[in-house]
Each structure stands twice: as structure tokens, then as C-alpha cells.
């Protein structure tokens, strides 16, 4: 802000870029603004920028200069522009544009005064008059009204020697279009309508007449009075904005600014108190100190009196303090609101959690109850199972005992059986022994008999040839039969039966069969003694054959018997040897 270059060649460079940008954007397409026209425009604007560096170049000046160039030679245009800028619009297009803002506040007050109903409606819609009238004033209605109307307004303006005509024209336009604006229903509509209506103000005479005749009361004196009234607020807001921007950049955001206010309001208040004391000090001291202490803008230079400045500064300070206080209050409010919200949030969250936990708890309880029931049931089942197990165990023990007893009994029986078997075997052995002994004895006896009766014995068959063999056999057998029977009745039935069979063969076939079976036994017995077992087929043959032989070959049988008897004798001898 303090770095406003004054007449240095750098300054013209600074504006140059903006001027170059705006050259083609000044009445684009207008035939007069060809290459030469643009060069002239460039020269004019650059010249003014160098002439008055405090303004330099401001957008909108390109339009003024362009218009002037259309109407007069380049040099005249320069002086005309200089006159308008420096005299009519002093402080309007400067870097801070303070007068422009002041004028808008003044206009707003005037509109408020003249058209209360319209302003009421605009307030209701949230429309600020300055949104539309600001561009009107800045461009002196250029591009806002039809060209004819613009020129008529410029006419009056240049003639008047001040910018009162701006206000009168604006008020006239409000008067003309106010009734239409009142019907609008939102801010957008209102602004658009006012813009388009103004752009179609083709009746320039009516406009100028309304402006000049209707608002004669709005004169320079009145405007100055109103400007002085509103200027401080513009400057203060300007300051605030600059400060705000600094604070914004320093603290990196309004949020943190608010936060700081909230956190320690005391230091801030004391700080402002310090500033206040500084101020009071400087009021007695030099004004330079005050300037350096407060980093006041250069605009303050334009204020006439240090005392006025002091008053104004005090007012500003008060305002600032007030704002700070309200900011602190707002911050506190916000904090409490935030805390409440947080609390509520927490409460809600907690209650939700508690509910959830309760739910879980009840679930768990239910589960527990179920489990307990199950457990009981299980226990009962277990008890029953145990009882059953006991019963079965008992039963098993009984069964085991039984089985043991039975086993024992079986064992005993087995033993008895074995004993019996053993005794049986013994008996058998004995029987065999007895039999062999008997046979041996019999043979012995027969040999004895043979020895005693030598004649019949060497030729037993001779009588058979001579007499019937059966008779001979009968004779011989009849001699020993009684003894034999008496001694070996149970054992040698075969012998007796054989003999009997031999006797009865011719009578009965069944007897023959019987005989054959007895024969078998006879044959069997020696086998047992010899322990030869491969002769069974022969035995079968014998069995089968015997019935036939019985009938057909009776004569042969004695031979067989004798043969077998001989074999037995040999065997006996062997046994004796053993």
C-alpha cells in the first residue's frame, strides 16, 4: 500500500500489461479502433498513467479514452481524459477506489430515501443496489445504456463539471423501472431485469429530463455532505479488509482466528487496550508515531486534520473492539453449541452402545439359561445312563460269574470227559491187549491142539476134498466153540457170527450181509493192530463182493480165514519180540 510508485518508469510498465489486455477489449469490432486507433488508445492511456501514477490505469478508462478518441484528436482526448479523471472522478479509479465505494453508499441512501418501497423489496430479495449501480457509475453508463442515452448523460455530466449527473441518472432509472422491479420474486430476476431495462432505455430525452428535473434536490453540496458521512465507514472497512487479509494470511484462516479468540479472549482485549493507550499517548505526541504504530494506510494522508484523524481512529478502534467482542461472543456461542452437539452426539452414541450391550447381555443370559437347561437335561441323561450302566455292570458281573461257573463246570466236565476218554482208551487198550492176548492164547491153544492132534492138522483140507467141507469145518469149530464163547463173548462176536453165518448162509441173504459186516470187523481189528490204513478199497471190494462170494464161493472163505489167521500169528510174534 505504501509502495505506490511515483512516476518511475517501472510504473508505466506495471500498467502496460493491463492496457495491452484491454486494447482489443475496448469497443471490439468498432471500425475506428483499427491498428492506428488501438495505437492511439495505447498512447493515450499510457500517457495518463504516467501523468497520474496514483491512478495509473484502471479498467473503464479504456472506454472513456476510446469514446474521446472517437470524438476528438489524440491530444484533446488526453486533456479531456485528464480533466474527467482528475477533476470529476478524483479518488474514484485509484488503487483503493474509495470514492467509488463512498458514492455507492451515498446512492443507496438516496434511493432508500426516494424509493422506500422499492428498497424494501430489494432488501427482502437480498439485492444490493450497488450490484447494478456500481458498474453503472464505474463505466459512466457506457455499455449499460444505449449509446444515445450514454452520450446525453455524458453531455450533462461534462457540462455540470461534477458527477452529480451519475446520481440523477441512476435515480431516474430507478424511478422508471422501480415499479417493474417490485414485481420480481428473486434476486436474480431483479438484477437481470434492472440490467436489461436499463440497456433498453432508448428514450434518452425522457431519461435526461427525469434525471435533471426530477432530482434537482440532489446537488453537489448534498452529495458532499453524504460522502463525508459515509467515507469513514468505507475507509474503516478498507482497513479491516487489509487487516483481515493479513490476519487471514498470518493465522491461515478465519477458523483458527475464531479459535484463538475463543481460547484466550483476555490477551486480545488487553492487546486492544494497549493499542488504545498507544493511541492516547500518540495523541499528545507526534502523529508520525501514531502512523508507524498503527500502520495506517496512505489514504489517511488525505484526511484534513490530525484531530479528525484521531477521532476517526478512535471510532474505528471502538468499532474494532466491538467487533472483536462480538466475535468472541460468537466464538463462545459456537463453542457451547459445538460442545452441546458433541455431548448430544456422545450421549446418543453411549445410549446406543448401552442398548446394544443390554441386548447382548440379555442374549447371553438367554443363552446361559438354555445352556443350564441343556446341562440339567444332560445330567439327567447322564444319571440314567450311569444307572443303566450300573445295572448292566451288575448284569455283566453276574453273567461273568455265571460264565465262570459254567466254564468251571465245562472244565470239570471236560476233565471228566477226558478222564472218561482216557479210561475208555485205557479200556480199549486193555481190550485190545486182552483180545490179542486172547488170540494169542487161541493160536497157542490151536497150535497146542495141532500138536495134540497131528493127523487132522497137516491136512485139514483132505477131508474137505473127501467129505463135505462144511462138515469138517463144523467139526473143527464145534470143538473149540464153547470155550471161545465163554471167554470172548463180548469181543469176538465176529468169530461166532462168522461161524453162524457160515452155517446159515444158504438160508438167508440178510444173514449173509450180517456176516459180511462181521467179517469187516474181523478184518478191521488186525488193521488196528498193524496200523495200516491203505487197504480200505480192498475192504470195500471185499464188502461188496462178499455177498456174492457168500453165495457163489463159499468154499474159499475158510482159506481166507486161515490166511488171515496166519498173518495174525506172524504179527503176534513180532509184538512178542518187541
Amino acid at each position, binding site marked *: 500500500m505504501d509502495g505506490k510508485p511515483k512516476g518511475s518508469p517501472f510504473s508505466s510498465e506495471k500498467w502496460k500489461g493491463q492496457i495491452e489486455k484491454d486494447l482489443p*477489449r475496448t469497443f471490439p469490432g468498432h471500425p475506428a479502433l483499427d491498428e492506428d486507433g488501438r495505437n492511439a488508445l495505447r498512447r493515450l492511456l499510457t500517457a495518463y498513467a504516467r501523468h497520474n501514477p496514483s491512478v495509473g490505469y484502471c479498467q473503464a478508462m479504456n472506454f472513456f479514452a476510446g469514446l474521446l478518441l472517437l470524438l476528438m484528436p489524440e491530444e484533446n482526448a488526453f486533456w479531456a481524459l485528464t480533466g474527467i479523471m482528475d477533476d470529476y472522478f478524483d479518488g474514484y479509479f485509484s488503487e483503493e477506489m*474509495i470514492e467509488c*465505494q463512498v458514492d455507492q453508499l451515498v446512492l443507496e441512501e438516496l434511493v432508500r430515501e426516494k424509493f422506500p418501497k422499492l428498497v424494501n423489496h430489494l432488501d*427482502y430479495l437480498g439485492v444490493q443496489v450497488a*450490484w447494478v449501480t456500481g458498474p453503472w457509475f464505474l463505466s459512466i453508463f457506457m455499455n449499460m445504456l444505449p449509446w444515445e442515452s450514454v452520450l446525453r448523460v455524458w453531455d450533462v455530466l461534462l457540462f455540470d463539471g461534477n458527477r452529480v449527473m451519475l446520481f440523477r441518472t441512476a435515480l431516474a432509472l430507478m424511478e422508471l423501472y422501480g415499479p417493474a422491479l417490485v414485481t420480481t420474486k*428473486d434476486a436474480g430476476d431483479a438484477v437481470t431485469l434492472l440490467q436489461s431495462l436499463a440497456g433498453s432505455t432508448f428514450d434518452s430525452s425522457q431519461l435526461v429530463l427525469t434525471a435533471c428535473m426530477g432530482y434537482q434536490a440532489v446537488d453537489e453540496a448534498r452529495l458532499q455532505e453524504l460522502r463525508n458521512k459515509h467515507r469513514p465507514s468505507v475507509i474503516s472497512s478498507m482497513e479491516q479488509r487489509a487487516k483481515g487479509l493479513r490476519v487471514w494470511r498470518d493465522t491461515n484462516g478465519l477458523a483458527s482466528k475464531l479459535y484463538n479468540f475463543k481460547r484466550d479472549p483476555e490477551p486480545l482485549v488487553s492487546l486492544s487496550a494497549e493499542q488504545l493507550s498507544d493511541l492516547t499517548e500518540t495523541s499528545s505526541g507526534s502523529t508520525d508515531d501514531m502512523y508507524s504504530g498503527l500502520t495506517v494506510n496512505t489514504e489517511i494522508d488525505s484526511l484534513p486534520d490530525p484531530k479528525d484523524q484521531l477521532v476517526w481512529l478512535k471510532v474505528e478502534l471502538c468499532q474494532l473492539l466491538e467487533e472483536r467482542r462480538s466475535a468472541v461472543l460468537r466464538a463462545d456461542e459456537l463453542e457451547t453449541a459445538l460442545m452441546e452437539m458433541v455431548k448430544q452426539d456422545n450421549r446418543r452414541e453411549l445410549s446406543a452402545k448401552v442398548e446394544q450391550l443390554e441386548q447382548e447381555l440379555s442374549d447371553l443370559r438367554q443363552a446361559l439359561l438354555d445352556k443350564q437347561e441343556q446341562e440339567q437335561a444332560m445330567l439327567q441323561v447322564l444319571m440314567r445312563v450311569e444307572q443303566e450302566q450300573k445295572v448292566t455292570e451288575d448284569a455283566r458281573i453276574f453273567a461273568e460269574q455265571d460264565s465262570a461257573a459254567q466254564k468251571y463246570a465245562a472244565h470239570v466236565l471236560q476233565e471228566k470227559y477226558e478222564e472218561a476218554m482216557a479210561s475208555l482208551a485205557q479200556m480199549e487198550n486193555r481190550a485190545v491187549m486182552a483180545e490179542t492176548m486172547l488170540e494169542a492164547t487161541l493160536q497157542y491153544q490151536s497150535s497146542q491142539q495141532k500138536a495134540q492132534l497131528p493127523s487132522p492138522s497137516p491136512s485139514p483140507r483132505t477131508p474137505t476134498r473127501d467129505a463135505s467141507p462144511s462138515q469138517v469145518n463144523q467139526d473143527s469149530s464145534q470143538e473149540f466153540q464153547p470155550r471161545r464163547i465163554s471167554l470172548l463173548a463180548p469181543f469176538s462176536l465176529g468169530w461166532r457170527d462168522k461161524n453162524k453165518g457160515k452155517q446159515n448162509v444158504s438160508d438167508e441173504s440178510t444173514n449173509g450181509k450180517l456176516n459180511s459186516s462181521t467179517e469187516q470187523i474181523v478184518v478191521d481189528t488186525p488193521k488196528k493192530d498193524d496200523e495200516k490204513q491203505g487197504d480200505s478199497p480192498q475192504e470195500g471190494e471185499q464188502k461188496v463182493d462178499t455177498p456174492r462170494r457168500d453165495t457163489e464161493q463159499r468154499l474159499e472163505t475158510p482159506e481166507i480165514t486161515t490166511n488171515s489167521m496166519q498173518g495174525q500169528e506172524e504179527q503176534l510174534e513180532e509184538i512178542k519180540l518187541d
Partner: protein
Amino acid sequence: MSTSRRRTLLKVIVLGDSGVGKTSLMNQYVHKKFSQQYKATIGADFVTKEVLIEDRLVTLQIWDTAGQERFQSLGVAFYRGADCCVLVYDVNVNRSFDTLNTWHDEFLNQASPSDPKTFPFILLGNKIDVDGGKSRVVSEKKAMEWCASKGNIPYFETSAKEDRNVDSAFLSVAKLALEHERDQDIYFQTVVADPVPEVEQRSGCAC
């Protein structure tokens, strides 16, 4: 009625250096026109456009501002009550990118929104068509980084001349603004009134 106005009107401020194409973007979006011959904007200009977002008809109130730095002084009058701020720079001009910080901070300072940290911004890198992109000096990456540093501002590369990305950018703007306005409604606990009359009166819409 005032609540209904708040609910359907979204105020969008377009900021950026002089000559980056703010007016062109706005005209391309609203009127589907591009002209090489725009007049320099003095003070501020204003257009409205109706858009349908999430089955809701909203009116975008787009404020086109003058790019010269000194006009920022007048900003306080225009910025107040904005629902979204569109920052525009020229990808072919470094300075227009460098001044973004000023525009950003100046806006927050003057509009003094209740929620400066979360106030919706959007960045448009305009004039990507120029010279087939050869004269470009600000890379997309650089722009994205800047956006990230400002709290993940959405970024669009546009060409108002060729109508590239303009619609999508402004749709994003509208969505952001709507979101912000909703948050504001909640924040201020404004009771919702009947928003119907708003829609009724609009008969000839340009969209």
C-alpha cells in the same frame, strides 16, 4: 419466501486475473456462444442459469467480476452470501496462476463465510486450446498441487473457445454450491418454507 430463495438460488462468484476468460467461460456456459470480442468487464456482470441437479431445479446466479486487482476493493459488495467461488487462471500465463492465492484469500476475507475452511472453491485452468497447448506454462500437476494445498479443490481444465469441460465444470460448481447451501441451512437452523413459487415463475429457461 426468503428461505425458499435461499434454497433455490445459488450464488457463484467467478474470480481470476484480467483476461483469463471469466466472461468467455460464463457466456459459453450460459449462452453457448464464444466471441473473440468481449468487452472488458467493469465492476461485475451478472447472469443466471437454471440447472437440474438431483431432480432439483436450481438457479445459478453467476457473478462475473472484473479482473483488475483494484476491483477487489468492491468485492465485499458482491462476494457476500456466495455459495461457491470459481477461480479461473490462464494456463498460458504464469502470473494468472500466481495470483490465485490472492484471489482465494481475498475472497474468504471479504465474503467472510461462516466456514472458511470448508467453503467450496473450484479451480478452472482455461485456454487449454491456445496454440494446441504448446504455449502452456502452468502444468496440470502444478495446478493439482495448488488445489491439494487449498483443501482438495476440484480442478477442471477448460476451453471456453472450444467448449471443453465448461458444462461439467459448472455442473460441479452447482453441485458444490448446493451442498454448501444445504450445510448452511443446517448450520443456521433455518426453517424450511414452501419452495414451490420459485419454480413456478420461471417459464422460459435457457437450459
